């Protein structure tokens, strides 16, 4: 546990507007009840961490937030998930439009086998966010700067993205997600495939991203959750056990299961 981090962040706990309002969410994979009755309100401009033992449903819930579960034929989602008041599972909602506003970064860096420039420009191109090459250049540069990658790659934008190091690749993927100007950024264990130095860089970046987006991060590492997040949700066996400010969860857990997990007895 890193108490120093928690102390530093004590100033930053005032309530913010709700970005995502989820109530009574259930998810089934075929017969398997993966998420049971989860209600949670995610705040804007906040880093929210989902923690819990593996298989607890935290990644599943994350993937519901931009309907990535649609790609799995057997997955079924019920309940209400409101993004700025619109139910994202409404029949009229086009997941394509939703995902433009709720971006996602994956566990393993997955740059496209294209140039660095094209990787970042891909999203803006398909969503028509730039009218010409000059505008696109601006968008790409901003996104790469936003992902703290610009200085490292500005001289080799036409080289292939798969040639970068692991940490650079993951920041490229973040830049790619940031370039479409989403409102919410979902991160599914973004550091689990990275070495400690790259992890530190990405964590620093996440803290900066909070200025612009609401960030939801799934993580295996409690230290990481404590370092980067303001709010923490603890999942266990598909249930949301406890949700509150990161401070409270780590120092004053209400539920005995939470306490067992953060003290290392389960998980």
């Amino acid at each position, binding site marked *: 546990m890193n108490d120093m981090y928690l102390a530093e962040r004590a100033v930053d706990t005032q309530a913010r507007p709700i970005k995502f309002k989820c109530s009574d969410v259930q998810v089934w994979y075929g017969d398997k009840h993966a998420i049971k009755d989860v209600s949670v309100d995610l705040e804007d*401009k906040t880093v929210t961490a989902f923690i819990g033992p593996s298989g607890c449903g935290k990644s599943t819930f994350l993937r519901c937030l931009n309907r990535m579960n649609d790609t799995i034929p057997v997955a079924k989602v019920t309940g209400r998930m409101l*993004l*700025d008041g*619109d139910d*994202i599972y*409404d029949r*009229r*909602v*086009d997941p*394509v*439009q*939703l995902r433009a*506003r709720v971006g996602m970064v994956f566990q393993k860096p997955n740059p496209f086998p294209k140039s660095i420039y094209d990787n970042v420009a891909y999203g803006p191109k*398909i*969503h*028509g*966010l*730039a*009218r010409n090459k000059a*505008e696109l250049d*601006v*968008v790409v540069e*901003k*996104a790469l*700067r*936003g992902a703290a990658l610009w200085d490292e790659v500005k001289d080799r934008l036409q080289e292939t993205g798969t040639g970068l190091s692991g940490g650079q690749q993951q920041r490229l993927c973040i830049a790619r997600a*940031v*370039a479409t*100007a989403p*409102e919410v950024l979902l991160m599914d264990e973004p550091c689990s495939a990275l070495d400690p130095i790259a992890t530190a860089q990405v964590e620093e970046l996440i803290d*900066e*991203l909070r*200025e*612009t987006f609401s960030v939801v991060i799934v993580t295996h590492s409690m230290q990481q959750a404590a370092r980067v997040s303001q709010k923490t949700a603890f999942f266990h066996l598909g249930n949301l056990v406890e949700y509150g400010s990161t401070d409270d969860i780590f120092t004053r857990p209400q539920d005995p299961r939470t306490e067992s997990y953060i003290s290392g007895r389960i998980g």
Partner: protein
Amino acid sequence: MTDVPSNLPRPVGPGAPSAPQARSLLIADARTRRRNAAEKRFRLYGILAIAVAMLALVFLLFTILRDGSSAFVQTYAKIPMTIEASIVDPQGNRDPAQMAKVLTTSYGKILQDSLARYLDDNDIVVEGLGDKDIQGFFSAQGRADMRQAVLADPSLVGQVVEVPVLTTSRVDGMFKGRVSRESAAVDARTSVAQYDLAMALAERGDLQTRFNWDFVTGTDSSDTRPESAGLGVAIIGSFYMMLIVLVLALPIGVATSIYLEEFAPRNRLTDLIEVNISNLAAVPSIVFGILGLAAFINVMGLPRSAPIVGGLVLTLMTLPTIIISTRAALRAVPPSIRDAALGVGASRMQTVFHHVLPLAMPGILTGTIIGLAQALGETAPLMLIGMVAFVTTYPSAPPQGFFDPASALPVQVFNWTQRADPAFFERASGAIIVLLAFMLAMNLLAIYLRRRFERRW
């Protein structure tokens, strides 16, 4: 909330002013609608592509079945036949030896006379009916059959018998609807009068079709009597070749696969073998035919048109298929099995032959059967080694039969498409049905084996 056109560039990245999002998720903007329309079109192309492929398959099978199924039945005329003693037994002593001297041609007169008499007796009048039309009504094979029946049973002489007699392919076509009155008019080998005659007899029920076993078991016949052409020699030839392929390709293929998969060191020789195998799999089949002609016939002096040469060529062609599937089957056996056997002190050879090979056997057999089915349908290389020859005698039993001239099913199909008489096309399509039936049976066997012995590790 107001709708802002989404194609405007919006502020991007940290540091940019974060304006509140003004779009509602519930309303698709114009760009999204356009993109979704493109999505639908793209999906449609995929469905169309599959539909085209499926329709092509259905159309192909439909035409083959439509054209070929009639080859399995043949038209016979059943009218009273008077076996005139004066024709078949001129000496009048019923001596089989002397009767055997009467040639088949004479029996044609019996058939003609009987038909003419039948028409008179039943007041069937066909305009413009000449002798030639009556003569050309029965197949030459029908005469030969009649002669054989009489020689086998001399007591028939002088009797009136009512046996079905094979008609010519034209009459057969008229009865089955393949030949119309118009096409009969322009065909030198038939006439409108003959068409009318056939229709008149058909109306009285004197023409009938029977299942045509001779088509499956009989030998090929000359251009003038397509009605009696059969597939017997071709089926035996194909069967002999499959036997040779099985006996040679299976052990050699399995041995090669075992060596490459289990023993071969990584060196230049192994690489060379691997490259050779993958290239042989893609060499055009006709090149194998050239190899067969040059190596097996010209250099080794093996006979042309013989199943042994065809079998050897097909073996070389099938080997890559068998090797590739056998290696996949060997690779599918988990290494833990090998480790377990080696761990109790078995040698590598023992490990392979006692444990790995038996476990891989279903996969190997499936691959072998599929390879055999491919070999069964192969045509081009067999044409170059002389299997297009016109063969009317069955090859004898193996091993001598491997060296006798024979045909093969797909080559017989080709052979019949090259004949002048269009009646052979029906036969060709029918032969394809037989070929496809064999291949279907082999594939079903392969599927059964796969299902029956499928293992999940």
